[in-house]
């Protein structure tokens, strides 16, 4: 077998960051090669080099044995390399066919879409990937959008596919489907590099594994067979990882949050919550499991007053639904939002000004008409030390912080107000292992302090280790609630796709 791709001593530098350091990677023809590593290990960067999006600072690329140099994605596409990005690179207002044709020289000037719709349908039949070619992207489900991404590269005749965390947005059953697609593509002569950080997926589908840690290769092309979680974790993290956060047994107190039969629309005006109800008690963590886009964001927004709805949301006997967000804040709701830079922080304001976002109205920070910035800076410095926020000073603007440190600023702010209810949406997404542990520990501390916590996460393991109860959300409804002792991945997985209802 020949080598489809050889990357030799590839180094990529960003200002202040060495993203890839002397990385080697070899992809054989007809192979599924898993590229593993933590968030921030440099996987996506390395693959963006292979896809022609970034240029390496040094090192060489060979495709089918020939040295190549890419100046744009077009060059990579010409060599048969196609990348399926983690965040879909699709134009929402255009049709499936238009997205597939984007960047190609054929059609010439006039588009003549119906003709190309037919070509797309032919391609779909060949690989068993079905989606309406005339549909607009924004009308499609996440799984369908991913199919469009795959079709996009297949249409270009790519025989080397890079898939950047393709499973992150899929339900377990959809993941199985995707893996079947991957196997059939390899059977048709394609080669695949598959980025993941989930071991069971890797052992299920990959032939070879390469592991990156902080931009350096720690295992190059080892066989996927016989890898153990411990071994893999050690390669990825560099030390034995024991998921050490331990939850103390404690009895939950009174109901703090009561959500009753709420309905709400998403930003496109499509119903996202359809009659959802749940309760969270003080001193307990209720985990919400579900595939992204089943109403989780809307649920968090309804509870924090950011989205209008019908139904009742009661926090400590006060009605919150359809009230301005300030009502929720004043009745003691802390909120760790999903998008920490777009919603959670103000990028050009200092750390100090970001930490007082919720507390500036009251003593000791707020003082009638004025704000006591001396006091605010003192408190910000204390928070910076306590939460180990890495930044030159509290005057540093938020935009200069890394994702993990930004998240710590948000946590510090939300927790320092001693919330009675904490709504945490994907609090550990995109953080490295150290930061994840810190965040999880903080959540458990709040639980012990008697806060009611609604934890919305895509990471089942996280939910299983932190929650007292787990509720599964699908199509805007709670499919079932169970104590964590009775929960297992299969049961949750089935409920996530809406096929089984278990009531407690």
């Amino acid at each position: 077998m020949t080598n489809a791709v050889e990357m030799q001593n590839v180094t990529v530098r960003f200002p202040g960051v060495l993203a890839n350091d002397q990385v080697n990677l070899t992809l054989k023809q007809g192979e599924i090669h898993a590229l593993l590593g933590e968030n921030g290990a440099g996987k996506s960067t390395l693959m963006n080099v292979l896809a022609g999006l970034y240029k390496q600072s040094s090192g060489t690329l060979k495709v089918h044995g020939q040295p190549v140099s890419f100046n744009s994605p077009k060059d990579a596409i010409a060599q048969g390399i196609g990348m399926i990005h983690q965040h879909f690179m699709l134009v929402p207002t255009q049709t499936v066919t238009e997205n597939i044709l984007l960047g190609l020289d054929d059609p010439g000037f006039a588009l003549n879409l119906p003709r190309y719709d037919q070509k797309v349908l032919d391609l779909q039949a060949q690989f068993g990937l079905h989606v309406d070619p005339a549909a607009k992207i924004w009308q499609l489900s996440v799984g369908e959008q991913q199919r469009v991404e795959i079709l996009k590269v297949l249409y270009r005749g790519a025989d080397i596919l890079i898939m950047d965390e393709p499973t992150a947005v899929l339900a377990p059953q959809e993941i199985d489907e995707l893996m079947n697609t991957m196997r059939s593509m390899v059977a048709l002569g394609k080669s695949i590099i598959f980025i993941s950080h989930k071991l069971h997926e890797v052992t299920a589908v990959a032939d070879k594994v390469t592991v990156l840690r902080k931009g350096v290769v720690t295992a190059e092309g080892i066989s996927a067979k016989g890898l153990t979680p411990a071994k893999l974790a050690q390669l990825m993290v560099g030390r034995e990882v024991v998921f050490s956060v331990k939850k103390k047994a404690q009895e939950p107190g009174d109901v703090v949050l009561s959500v009753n039969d709420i309905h709400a629309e998403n930003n496109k005006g499509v119903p996202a919550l359809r009659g959802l109800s749940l309760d969270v008690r003080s001193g307990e963590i209720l985990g919400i499991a579900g595939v992204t886009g089943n109403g989780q964001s809307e649920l968090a927004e309804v509870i924090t007053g950011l989205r209008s709805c019908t139904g009742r949301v009661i926090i400590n006997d006060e009605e919150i639904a359809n009230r301005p967000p300030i009502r929720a804040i004043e009745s003691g709701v802390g909120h760790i939002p999903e998008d920490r830079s777009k919603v959670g922080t103000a990028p050009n304001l200092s750390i100090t000004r970001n930490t007082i976002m919720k507390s500036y109205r009251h003593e000791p920070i707020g003082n009638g008409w004025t704000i006591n910035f001396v006091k605010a800076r003192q408190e910000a410095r204390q928070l910076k030390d306590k939460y180990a926020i890495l930044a030159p000073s509290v005057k540093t603007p938020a935009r200069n912080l890394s994702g993990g440190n930004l998240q710590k600023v948000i946590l510090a702010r939300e927790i320092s107000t001693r919330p009675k209810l904490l709504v945490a949406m994907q609090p550990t997404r995109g953080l490295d292992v150290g930061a994840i542990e810190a965040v999880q520990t903080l959540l458990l501390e709040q639980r012990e302090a008697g806060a009611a916590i609604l934890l919305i996460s895509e990471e089942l393991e996280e939910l299983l280790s932190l929650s007292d109860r787990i509720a599964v959300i699908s199509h805007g409804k709670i499919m079932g609630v169970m104590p964590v002792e009775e929960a297992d991945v299969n049961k949750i997985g089935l409920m996530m796709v809406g096929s089984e209802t278990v009531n407690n």
Partner: protein
Amino acid sequence: MPFKLVLEKRVKDVPPWYPFATSIGSVVIAFIISGLILKLIGGQPLEVARYFFTAAFGSWAAFSDTLVKATPLILVGLACTVAFKMKLWNIGAEGQFYMGAFFASLVVLLPILPPDSPKIVVIGAMMVMGMIGGAIWGFIPGYLKARFSINEIISTLMLNYVAILWNNFWIFNTWSDAGFQMTPTFPKSAWLTRVTDYARPYKAFMQNTDSGLTRFLESIGLERISGMTLHLGVVFGLIAVVIVWWLLERSRWGYEVALIGDNPHAARYAGLNIARNIILVMMVSGALAGLAGMSEVTGVVHRLQERISPGYGFTGIIIAWLAKLNPFAVVPVAILFGGLILAGREIQPSGLAMMLQGFILFMIISSDVLLRYKIRFSK
């Protein structure tokens, strides 16, 4: 291309002197480019530059005139600063200026107060009315934005034209002074005190006293102050600077404005009422511009007339930007532009000052890239 321009994101904060340096550099480059263009069309840039300087800063009398021009500029510069802090693009300071002038004039034209009212009452009433007029003209686009998400750039701009035409109607139709395009001169009680009003006592003081102070004043060439038209409006401007600074940098409201301006999503998440603040900021901004209009009719022209503003409202945009939205920096920048406008009136071609302003603003925003990125050239 033989080399490539590479922008490298700055990881560290820039030193505090850096924004000043880039601003000054921008102004210098803008002057040089404008000079080259002037040369291109057969002018004499150095001659013009010398004339500019003499006409604006060459003597105390000239400087006094420059400050007279700078007075409305300080106020409209502040008006734009307040709005831009919240990323509200109030391009309507010009219209708010006219409405401020109109409403202030109502006090004596309608009249709201009897003609023999004491000066302090008349001036006070005119200030209040001027600010109300500007605030109304700010409220309209603010409300349209808060309620219907109407782009405030367009609405404020359109309202500029409406305000000028509105003023014209009353000047030409109702209060025209013997068919001229102006109202009759206001009574003295509606005039802001000017420096020249003190010329006589000052002269007596200089002649009858021999102290360190008089010698000092003489040595700097201030032996006479008659004819100096600098008026009380400049004091309004300076007080407004301090108030605006306090509002923006120290008050709760200023924090809210900055938060909304930087990230409205975060502001909503933090429980702020964005719609209310949009309207409020537009009204405060309008009130400041309206006060500028009031100061101009009571301090300079002493009547309502056509074209009381040579585009002060637009210059205010550049001033706010050049001052990097810092209320204190608005003062020196406004003085520079005041000199530019003063000297520019008598310089041909007439668009020169406007072109220079355009280049200055353009260079400023181009130089902002230096604050966020390091620029390298690479092969």
